[in-house]
């Protein structure tokens, strides 16, 4: 039997040792008559070779971002993952261990998380960061709950230019604790959150305002200006970053007046994998650390005074505090954080800055190429590596035509924003070659203006 080493003799030895004639005698506490009579209705087991063939066949029914040119982003980014990342996270001492409860035999995981926490702090210019959360969306929900604990206030204002699935997640998470959630409109010309809309919604009961930067439309937000509006009412400003490569180019949340920075670190070292597992990050100011959810690693010493690391501040956590814990989170996304740390480390400061400039340049090139075929940006705001365009035709039809040319041309926004019927969100990264971008623009021209018959 796969993965089970016992021979019949071993099983007999065990039964004898425990004084049972059969396994059934050990199961006497199970309700009589409820034991399954027949086998589960599942396919029969497969030898490894056949299993692999089956999985290969199943996977081949998907079209990868390598087979088609993909211009999708919207919270999940196609980036190059250096070979060192997978090689090192495949060290089984990392991936077959669990939460480092026993620090003496978990120093590897603990130091790696400590380094990851530091890298997130450096990237965001915040004081402290946790070991990871599930993903960007749940990280925003946790940040909103954290802001309530810090301020003792209830109201949550979400920018309408925050990723729609993040907004849905926040609403789902907070339903049990009273939602008090409102949305602040975005400016239809600039594609950025309207400070007036925040002024309109904010009150003395507002715990936090949540703004994504670059936002869901790809536009850059003026966090410094929003920070003034938010802090005047003694609320917290939560910055959300879904594309952290942008932090190689843009001023980080920590110097723009943000109190909590959260987001998605998938871009660093984690494959697209059809949406998960990704990696929520959270960083904040020192004064708020005891209200932060999630695991935290601290530096300390062992009994000989040697530098050592361990999990700390666990009195915030569910296994100690139970229903009074800062969060219910237990298993988080440790291996994804390791992958992110290795990728960040392998880029270094120079590499990350270059990668950010490269992403920006690819997107600007694509933006300009599309302009030449009559496709204009929908908003006037600056962007990083994605932007929204407005088409003269139904985007769904355009996307279908592009698919025939093996191009995944972006995300039609009307599924999330019924008003943006003709809008398409387009992303370019270092994975899109100049040739691909040119072909995309040409194809777009072709499908927008069908050749005269």
């Amino acid at each position, binding site marked *: 039997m796969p993965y089970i080493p*016992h021979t019949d003799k071993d099983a007999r030895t065990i039964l004898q040792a425990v004084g*049972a004639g059969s396994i059934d005698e050990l199961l006497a506490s199970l309700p009589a008559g409820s034991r399954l009579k027949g086998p589960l209705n599942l396919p029969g*087991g497969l030898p490894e070779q056949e299993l692999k063939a089956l999985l290969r066949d199943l996977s081949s029914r998907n079209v990868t971002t390598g087979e*088609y040119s993909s211009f999708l982003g919207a919270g999940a980014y196609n980036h190059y993952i250096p070979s060192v990342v997978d090689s090192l996270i495949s060290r089984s001492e990392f991936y*077959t261990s*669990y939460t480092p409860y026993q620090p003496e035999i978990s120093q590897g995981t603990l130091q790696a998380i400590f380094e990851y926490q530091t890298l997130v702090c450096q990237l965001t210019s915040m004081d402290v960061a946790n070991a990871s959360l599930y993903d960007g969306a*749940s990280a925003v929900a946790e940040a909103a709950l954290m802001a309530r604990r810090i301020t003792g206030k209830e109201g949550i204002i979400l920018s309408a230019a925050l990723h729609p699935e993040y907004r849905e997640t926040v609403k789902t998470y907070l339903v049990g604790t009273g939602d008090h959630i409102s949305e602040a409109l975005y400016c239809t010309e600039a594609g950025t959150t309207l400070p007036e809309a925040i002024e309109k919604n904010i009150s003395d009961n507002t715990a936090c305002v949540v703004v994504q930067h670059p936002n869901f439309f790809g536009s850059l937000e003026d966090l410094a200006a929003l920070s003034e509006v938010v802090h005047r009412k003694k609320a917290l400003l939560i910055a959300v970053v879904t594309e952290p490569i942008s932090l190689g180019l843009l001023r980080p949340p920590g110097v723009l007046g943000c109190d909590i920075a959260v987001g998605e670190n998938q871009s660093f070292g984690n494959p697209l994998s059809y*949406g998960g597992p990704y990696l929520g990050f959270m960083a904040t100011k020192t004064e708020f650390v005891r209200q932060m959810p999630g695991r935290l690693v601290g530096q300390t010493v062992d009994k000989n005074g040697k530098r050592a690391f361990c999990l700390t501040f666990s009195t915030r956590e569910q296994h100690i505090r139970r229903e009074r814990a800062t969060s219910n989170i237990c298993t*988080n996304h440790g291996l994804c954080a390791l992958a992110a740390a290795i990728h960040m480390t392998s880029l270094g400061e120079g590499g990350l800055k270059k*990668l950010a400039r490269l992403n920006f340049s690819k997107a600007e090139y694509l933006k300009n190429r599309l302009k030449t075929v009559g496709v204009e940006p929908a908003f006037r705001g600056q962007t990083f590596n994605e932007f929204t365009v407005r088409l003269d035709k139904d985007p769904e039809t355009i996307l279908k035509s592009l698919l025939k040319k093996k191009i995944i041309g972006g995300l039609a926004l009307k599924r999330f924003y019924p008003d943006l019927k003709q809008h398409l969100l387009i992303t370019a990264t270092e994975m899109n070659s100049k040739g691909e971008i040119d072909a995309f623009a040409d194809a777009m021209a072709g499908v927008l203006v069908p050749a005269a018959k």
Partner: protein
Amino acid sequence: MSMNGAKGLLLEEPVIFEKSSPGRTGVEPASFDVPEADIEGIIPKQMLRGAIEGFPDVSEMDIVRHYTRLSQWNFGVDSGFYPLGSCTMKYNPKVNEEAARLPGFAMLHPYEPEELTQGALQLMYELENYLAEISGMDAVTLQPSAGAHGELCGLLAISAYFKDKGRPRTKVIIPDTAHGTNPASSHLAGFKVVPVKSEGRGVLSLDAIKGVMDRDVAALMLTNPNTIGLFERNIKEIADFVHKKGGFVYCDGANLNALMGIIKLGELGVDVIQFNLHKTFSTPHGGGGPGSGPVGVKKALAPYLPVPRIKKTRSKYSLDFNRPKSIGRMKAFYGNFSIMVRAYSYIRRMGAEGLKRASETAILNANYIKENLKGTYHLPYDEPCMHECVFSDKYQLGSGVATMDIAKRLIDYGFHPPTVYFPLVVHGAIMIEPTETETLETLDKFIVAMKAIAEEAKTSPQALKDAPANTKVQRVDETKAAREPILRWRKG
């Protein structure tokens, strides 16, 4: 006995920032094949960043050695026996790792049109059905990212059900043996927690539930087998009573590894269960995740599961967002897909017969350890156990030795310690879960080690207090870490 643990060469390694030398790059990004954009001309200067203070600049080889050394300070399932109770540290098959890395699974964007992702949707659809069959549930969502995330999802669905029926309920009953995530998730879902004690034999009694169950109780949240490793033998009567009062029964599925192919929780009155794919279904624990926490429910609760659901019409798979009663979303996208691939691969490799054999063997192994160590260690509940058994340090306390010392000494013998000080109802608990993937020889070595440690506790207790002796660092000062927090590296 001779110890399993031997000395190896462990190398010291600074934190990565201390190895930095400005100008070095590990892996250079691709070259510019488009003109470099005039950033300063496009983006206002006050929006651009200067230095990334402290970011490390290291060479590729440095990175490889750094993380290789770190990994060598770790102990994983591949390193040795890891009987961490309640965590099901079974072998993580290598073929699953390969499966998750197939380009057709790994290089797939979540917003690709459905016609390009039929293989992924089929895999998810089938995995949902397998999990429903194993547990006896009617519908399964794969969206939650971990066990606790699944708990929250299940509880929110229960809450939504009562709101939808126009009679919201406010309380959840939780036994004192429960994982801490249960009360934490209930609180987050907006419920008040009503604790209930297990009776003398370590299981719940119908009378105890009758004493607290009323029409404000939305659910009883239990774990079965419970955290003492015992099957909740009164579950059917208890579930009938909870149902009679209009409530639901939530089962924390963390311990499902004991039940596959033996009994279906859904047939015993359980209405909601979360599956920990990283426990029962062999996906690796990753040093603390990522896991995956699908949720199975009975028909009445299916309309409330998160969106999207996966639908099959003839032979085409699609994502169904039109679910007006749904609780919404637990996260962006559809769940931890690459973990689902691993679990799918495991179930297909094992088949029905293999899964049953896995559960039976897990039970055999736990009972073997229990029988061999009772007498040496205090066994608070002497009953046939399921997949794990719980001892305490009662017999050793007299020598001034406690559970933590026993755990640390095990490290010197080459074993990962069991779960300690949990469940809370057993003072000084030592919770051992061997899993089905360990050989009899390994179990024997572990038993001999545990007996040797009990002997040492009498003859040389200091050896336990000083343990572990062979690790990279010795006893770590966790109090100092909390009192003088250093949560990040800073340039000294």
